[in-house]
């Protein structure tokens, strides 16, 4: 909640012209109303409104100003100074301490977990067409990519599987209950407004999550009306059209976006030394998103309605003599509706409510009967309805929240393509969660030159599922964290976290086969900690650094094991241990026109279960987990031109449990470059850009038997009407 308000006001401040600034409480990050602003000779004055906004148009650029309020210490500054920052922090009068620390601690407030924020500029959206490709190149997340624009892409972190990473779409969890994952290739970038990867759930995310939280937000809040339209075309026949409209006033914001994409996905790849074209990987998708946000007084409402339609081939694996191993087709229609409410009950109390309803219709046609067991067609509908209630308290130094959430879901037909069940039974699920989180800030405790924030949360989740018989599970999870900064180096925020998380088995894991009874499959459990720092230095136009060491110990990990009957069955068979280092550096130069960034991951994720003396999988790297991952990027952007170069490196990965070197995917480097220019014609801003993916024509695989495209080209045209 605090994050939202702060970000909201920062956005407002940035979007306004230099004639207004925002006044913020430096502890609570809330706007401060009725702050009296006067110039030194008291000839001109102004007062901040309920949003903390202050108009400066009546002051001259040379004026020196005094900000005063009964509850806050006076602040002395100048128009020139605040015109640059656009934000004024006021220190509550009852707080004594270093303003440097307080300001630094304010930064750490909304970034008390290790969080990666992906800046979504129009140029970035030109290059990366879906959330999966964007995250692969711009974050530390590991994206399992099955190839091409339409290939399934799932996100995982720190050596864990994708089911452990919670994906929130406008605050609603969208992990598929059947698989636990989200196909990020289905989420187009054109409609996304904000994208964060939060490595720890912290005290503000109530879902259990060992693999971090991916937050996706659509809908802009801007008073300026604009329309964006774009066309894309690629060398392997990908075509898309997108249209986005944003508008509003100070109380009402609305946006709507639509994207249609069609592709033969007939991209080139090399297999057994022969250049081939990918078959049965075509897709046809529509993504429609609409957002309305209304706020008045202490109430804020938001409605997000999203529709997704996908019709695609399921290309299958590529193996010797079997280049087109599937003729299966997939149809997916989904509606996701989310209603967000925020009500300020008093100066310190706030109530938030999120109601979401998601309905998905999935049809699999498989004429060869390879993916689908008994019949050649499977048809299922998955509905889930969720209500989340959150009561928040903020006194400035102490913030807490209490969450009660209930989710009910139903899958009408268990015989989806990943299930070996042949009777079309229905699964129902009811999940209830209570979570409480809090954080407490100490400025210079015991006269030490540090600012300290303690945070923590504890939750209890009860899940009741029914398929022929009932299955109940109760789980407790908890987290704690400390972040602090020192007066001598306020630019650096040191952080450490510990959490105990778990993951409930997915529908597929629990109900895949009614022959091998795994109804009682236990949840996976994880204990994890990390330690590191985030830093921001004023080097040239800004240098941001982040360095984290983490360790995760997992128990009862669910592994799919083929049986002698050729049916896979999941079992809680494995303990795992994952540790690693995550380094991120971003340097801005030349008045923020140039950005250099490097993201490096070292992941040592091992199987720690030795089932017997002949088990050669013990202490071996988990399959498909690279030891090293590196992304390096260069971007130049000015009013007219932009250029971007991105290099991705992934080290060797094994795909057998014993890390047999005969069965490994070799290391690869992929280089993408793009460039474009803007121009104005008839008062409209136009942009033309081109992207070359895999410039070096690298023949590589992320998943064995699912080839990645060789060099492909993309042409973009877009326009913006204001």
């Amino acid at each position, binding site marked *: 909640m605090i994050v939202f308000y702060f970000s909201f006001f920062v956005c407002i401040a940035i979007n306004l012209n230099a004639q207004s600034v925002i006044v913020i409480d430096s502890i609570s990050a809330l706007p401060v109303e009725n702050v009296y602003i006067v110039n030194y000779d008291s000839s001109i004055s102004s007062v901040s409104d309920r949003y903390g906004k202050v108009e400066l148009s009546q002051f001259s650029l040379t004026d020196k100003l005094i900000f005063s309020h009964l509850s806050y210490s006076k602040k002395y500054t100048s128009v020139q100074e605040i015109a640059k920052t656009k934000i004024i922090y006021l220190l509550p009068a009852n707080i004594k301490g270093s303003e440097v620390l307080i300001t630094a601690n304010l930064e750490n407030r909304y970034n008390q977990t290790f969080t990666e924020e992906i800046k979504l500029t129009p140029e970035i959206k030109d290059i990366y067409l879906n959330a999966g490709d964007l995250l692969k190149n711009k974050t530390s997340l590991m994206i399992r990519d099955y190839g091409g624009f339409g290939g399934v892409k799932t996100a995982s972190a720190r050596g864990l599987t994708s089911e452990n990473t919670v994906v929130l779409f406008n605050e609603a969890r969208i992990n598929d209950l059947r698989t636990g994952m989200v196909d990020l290739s289905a989420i187009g970038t054109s409609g996304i407004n904000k994208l964060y990867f939060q490595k720890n759930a912290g005290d503000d995310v109530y879902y259990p999550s060992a693999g971090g939280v991916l937050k996706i937000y659509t809908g802009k809040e801007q008073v300026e009306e604009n329309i964006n339209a774009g066309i894309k075309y690629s060398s392997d026949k990908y075509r898309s059209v997108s249209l986005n409209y944003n508008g509003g006033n100070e109380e009402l914001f609305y946006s709507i976006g639509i994207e249609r994409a069609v592709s033969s996905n007939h991209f080139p790849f090399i297999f*057994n030394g022969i250049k081939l074209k990918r078959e049965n990987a075509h897709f046809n998708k529509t993504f429609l998103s609409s957002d309305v946000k209304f706020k008045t007084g202490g109430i804020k409402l938001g409605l997000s309605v999203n529709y997704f339609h996908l019709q695609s081939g399921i290309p*299958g*694996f*590529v*193996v*010797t*003599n*079997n280049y*087109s*191993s599937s003729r299966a087709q997939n149809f997916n229609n989904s509606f996701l509706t989310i209603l967000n409410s925020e009500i300020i009950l008093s100066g310190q109390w706030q109530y938030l409510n999120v109601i979401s309803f998601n309905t998905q219709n999935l049809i699999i046609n498989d004429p*060869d*009967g*390879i993916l689908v*067991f*008994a019949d050649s067609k499977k048809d299922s509908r998955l509905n889930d309805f969720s209500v989340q209630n959150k009561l928040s308290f903020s006194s400035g130094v102490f913030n807490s929240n209490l969450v009660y959430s209930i989710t009910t879901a139903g899958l009408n037909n268990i015989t989806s393509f990943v299930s*070996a*069940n*042949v*009777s079309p039974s229905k699964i129902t699920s009811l999940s209830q969660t209570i979570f409480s989180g809090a954080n407490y800030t100490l400025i210079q405790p015991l006269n030490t030159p540090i600012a300290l924030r303690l945070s923590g949360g504890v939750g209890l989740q009860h899940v009741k599922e029914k398929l022929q018989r009932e299955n109940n599970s109760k789980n407790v999870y908890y987290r704690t964290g400390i972040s602090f900064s020192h007066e001598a180096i306020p630019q650096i925020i040191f952080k450490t976290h510990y959490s105990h998380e778990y993951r409930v088995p997915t529908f597929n894991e629990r109900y895949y086969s*009614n*022959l091998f009874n795994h109804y009682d499959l236990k949840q996976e459990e994880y204990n994890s900690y990390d330690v590191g720092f985030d830093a921001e230095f004023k080097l040239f136009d800004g240098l941001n650094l982040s360095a984290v060491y983490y360790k995760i110990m997992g128990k009862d990990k669910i*592994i799919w*094991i*083929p*049986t*002698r*009957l050729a*049916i896979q069955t999941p079992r809680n*068979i494995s303990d795992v241990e994952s540790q690693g280092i995550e380094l991120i550096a971003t340097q801005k130069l030349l008045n923020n026109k140039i950005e250099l960034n490097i993201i490096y991951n070292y992941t040592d994720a091992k199987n720690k279960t030795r*089932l*017997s*003396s*002949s*088990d*050669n*999988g013990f202490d071996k790297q988990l*399959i498909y987990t*690279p*030891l*090293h991952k*590196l992304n390096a990027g260069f971007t130049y952007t000015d009013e007219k031109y932009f250029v971007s170069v991105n*290099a991705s*490196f992934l*080290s*060797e990965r094994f*795909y*057998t*449990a*014993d*890390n*047999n*070197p*005969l*069965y490994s995917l070799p*290391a690869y*480097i992929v*280089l993408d470059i793009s460039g474009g220019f803007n121009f104005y014609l008839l008062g409209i801003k136009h942009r033309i850009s081109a992207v070359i993916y895999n410039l*070096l024509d690298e023949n590589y695989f992320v998943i*064995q*038997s699912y080839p990645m495209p060789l060099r492909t080209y993309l042409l973009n045209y877009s326009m913006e009407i204001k």
Partner: protein
Amino acid sequence: MKKILLLLITSLLLASCSKDNSVEPTAPATSKGIFIVNEGLFSQNNASLTYYDFETISVYNNVYSGANGGTPLGDNANSMSVVNEKGFIAVDNSNKIEIINLKNFKSLGQIDLGAGGSPREIWMKDSTTGYVTSLYTNQVVKFNAINKSVIKNISVGDKPEGITGAAGKLFVANSGFGASNSVSVIDIASDAVIKSLTVGYNPRVIVNGNDGKIYVVCTGSYTDTTVLSGVYKIDPASLTVTDSIKLRGFPGEACEVKGNKLFVVNSEGVYSINMNFDSAPSLVIPASVVNNLTMVVYSIAYDKNSETIYCGNPKDFLQNGEVAAFNLSGEEINRFNVGINPGSIVIFK
């Protein structure tokens, strides 16, 4: 540009490089031994062939890849039939039959069964003609082994697996993935289905007995555990099911051994069944002795010269497996490493 990038991250490459530099020993020209057809991991294109030489008492892994310039055998190699020093390997997910020279493991070519061909088990009529069950097309495919072409497709029951020939007939086990209980009978002269016999559910494995009878191992239903599984005896002359014996625990792979016995693998291990079906089956080799990871025996074969039983151990199905050798009393003689998921063991003499 690529070289510059590679230099920049050389340290990472060196750090990440952990390749095992050991080289598989070169296999000798084969004389007597056993071949292990390793399925590999589904859709990972890493099926392989292992050869164990009786004379040198040595095991040689990846002999196909080693003899053919590193070319992988394919995806999900299911079984192999041998005739005149040629091996015919059914490579399921690669939709092909790979023909190899068993003396030097060199490829003699492939028979492409087309999309969905899914070959499972092969029966060679002679050195020029063979029949293979095609799982997803519900057919038996007749092929020419010399010019490597498909001659005819014969429609049989649902999801055919095991196949064998006797008395001028082909007997095809139609598994139905657990839902079928029939054996199709094909007249070899006319290549036409002449009869369908009813046996237990999920017939998968067919063995020719030295007594002239056909033994069909029925694994049982995957959805109804009350349906009993067992072994059914067919008289190829009268084309009738003459007898049966129940065996629990999803029986599958089987072989005939000395003393008029069938050794049948189920979830408990290896059971011995008197081929007269006049006594209860008895456990000879517990599964835990073969495989102490997941207690699964994956394949079985019998060498009559040495009176040795060979059992395939897939371990946890995710890494290289083993083959364990036992005498007829169930005592372990030897054990050696093979490829991933040793699904079929073939004695070569």
